[in-house]
């Protein structure tokens, strides 16, 4: 059981990172459907950097950076040029998957160098790691998992306790009013979209460097889309995102662990996607005022038409 939950946290971490990334996007009023694409770009960049430099830090940084690049393209198109967010996001996904399979063409099956792997192995934290049961599950993990815990907390503080978070909410809810209150709408959108892209790139890097850890084409296998759905599950709240990500991480592990028995494991592979639809349906249906999306989500802001 402990090993199952331990694995669940690892499987949930990429989902958590990309869900947080998408929450940042959506809080700024931009529905970015390019999560899968940014993750793939981050995954391939991280993997290549790991191969090339043998340095875990640079590998992770590279993954993060390429997520940012993807997000920047999206931000430039949707914020500055006011393109349709749905289509732009989809295109970003196609672009990212094209880039990753183009660059990763000859990498299939190659593994992450040992030196990089070594830096990303679980480290038991001094005090917290000694907590019975929970210590093993949550505090005997690799450094990126710890970073993801911190990110949840930092983002929650940013959203709920800072002035910038309040401004961000204004931008996402009503950019016209925000602009009138002299908040720089475009700047807020750019910063949050790019920060979100960084998290998606990091998430992709986590897949290729820690979770798999080798290169395979289309390594994300739809996790980016599950993350988009998890945002609704989490009602744009970072803490609930953590819960949702681990729930789906668990599903991932179940499909992985069950070998051919009563039900075929090929059949069970459908499970996470089916559960995503069910969860999404449930949470869209009982959407309350408190759990509603930013009001201008998906709508371009034209200052000239104010």
């Amino acid at each position, binding site marked *: 059981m402990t090993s199952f939950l331990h694995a669940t946290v690892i499987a949930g971490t990429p989902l958590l990172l990309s869900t947080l990334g998408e929450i940042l996007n959506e809080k700024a009023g931009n529905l970015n459907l390019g999560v899968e694409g940014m993750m793939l770009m981050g995954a391939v960049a991280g993997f290549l950097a790991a191969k090339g430099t043998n340095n875990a830090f640079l590998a992770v940084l590279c993954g993060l950076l390429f997520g940012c690049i993807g997000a920047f393209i999206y931000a430039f198109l949707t914020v500055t040029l006011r*393109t349709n967010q749905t*289509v732009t996001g989809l295109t970003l996904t*196609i672009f990212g998957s094209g*880039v990753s399979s183009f660059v990763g063409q000859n990498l299939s099956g190659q593994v992450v160098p040992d030196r990089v792997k070594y830096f990303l192995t679980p480290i038991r934290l001094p005090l917290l790691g000694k907590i019975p049961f929970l210590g093993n599950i949550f505090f005997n993990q690799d450094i990126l998992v710890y970073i993801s815990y911190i990110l949840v907390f930092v983002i929650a503080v940013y959203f709920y306790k800072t002035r910038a978070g309040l401004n961000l909410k204004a931008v996402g809810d009503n950019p016209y009013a925000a602009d009138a209150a002299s908040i720089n709408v475009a700047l807020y959108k750019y910063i949050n979209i790019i920060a979100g892209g960084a998290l998606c790139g990091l998430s992709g890097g986590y897949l290729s460097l820690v979770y798999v850890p080798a290169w395979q084409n289309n390594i994300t296998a739809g996790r980016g889309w599950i993350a988009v759905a998890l945002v609704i599950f989490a009602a744009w709240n970072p803490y609930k995102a953590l819960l949702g990500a681990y729930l789906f991480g668990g599903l991932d592990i179940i499909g992985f662990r069950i070998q051919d028995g009563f039900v075929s494991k090929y059949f069970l592979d459908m499970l996470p996607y089916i559960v995503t639809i069910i969860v*999404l349906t449930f949470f*869209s249906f009982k959407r309350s005022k408190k759990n509603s999306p930013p009001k201008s989500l998906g709508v371009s802001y034209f200052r000239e038409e104010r």
Partner: protein
Amino acid sequence: MRFVKRDNVDNFFRIKVKIISIVLAFLIMSIFLFALNINPLDAFFGMVKGAFGSPLRIRQTTIKTVPLIITSLGILIAFKMKFWNIGGEGQILIGAFGASIFALFYNNFNRPVLLALMALSSLVFGGLYALIAAFLKLYFRTNETIVTLMLNYIALKFITYLQYGPWKDKKALGFPKIANFPDNALLPSFFGVNIGWVIAVICLILVYIFMNHTKKGYEISIIGESINTARYAGINIKAVTLLCVFLSGALCGLTGFIQSSGVNGTLSVEISGGVGFTSIIIAYLSSLKEPFILIVSILFAALLQGSSYIETSLKIPNSAALILQSLILFCILASEIFTSYRLKIKR
């Protein structure tokens, strides 16, 4: 720097902007190829040669055009209503599955009857599969983009399950594939290409008439323009939505039939091969206008055929086509603002 609204924009100007942006996409791609030590001119001429260089290659390009036309038409119908059906891939697979049921298990008919049954089955299966998303959207307000996308993965895993499990061909010596269709379940050829291209042309005409000259087609556009107007005009939104999404999925399903019966000769996970996604781009590039679908589909088929040619001749990965496709769309998207706005630089 700010944008100022343009007053009168004619179609000629729009097309000019689109062509400029496609050229721009090729330029960006050139930089990309340069960076990888590949001469872009070699690549682009290779693509043209690979797509149109010989009668055989032209036939190959035509074969690749057919699924793009039909699927794009399906996507167009849904997009007209602003129903973001990105489940083309899944609907193609499930349509092919519907056709395969007849081809593999109920094939004691003569060829025309069996093919008609397979086509019908693919339409129904594809349509019903898309309806899941419409139903959830109508009754539970679930986001259709994500549902149709999840349905892609579910369909993919389902066909994988069939291929590795219950439908695995026992004669294939353990190789995970589904049995080949019998001869009477294969589409005949017409001018050297399977008659899917005739079906594509018929679909194009039918969809054009349906969307532009029937009441239901008009109602779909109204809902897409403004749901409130539609409600005010007394349109039965639920009924029209269900019909629209069913037709959208049915056309994608039909693609599955043509690909399995006319091209692959069996059902496999590779049958959709990204067509569902490419078609989204095509539908969008065609400004949701049927005649343009034909032209853009041929260009994209040439892109696909050309890039699979240079994959062997120049050793450029096939995914280059994917990058080029998305670059074209990025540039077109970016250019759209310039068709309705002018950039004004304040000093």
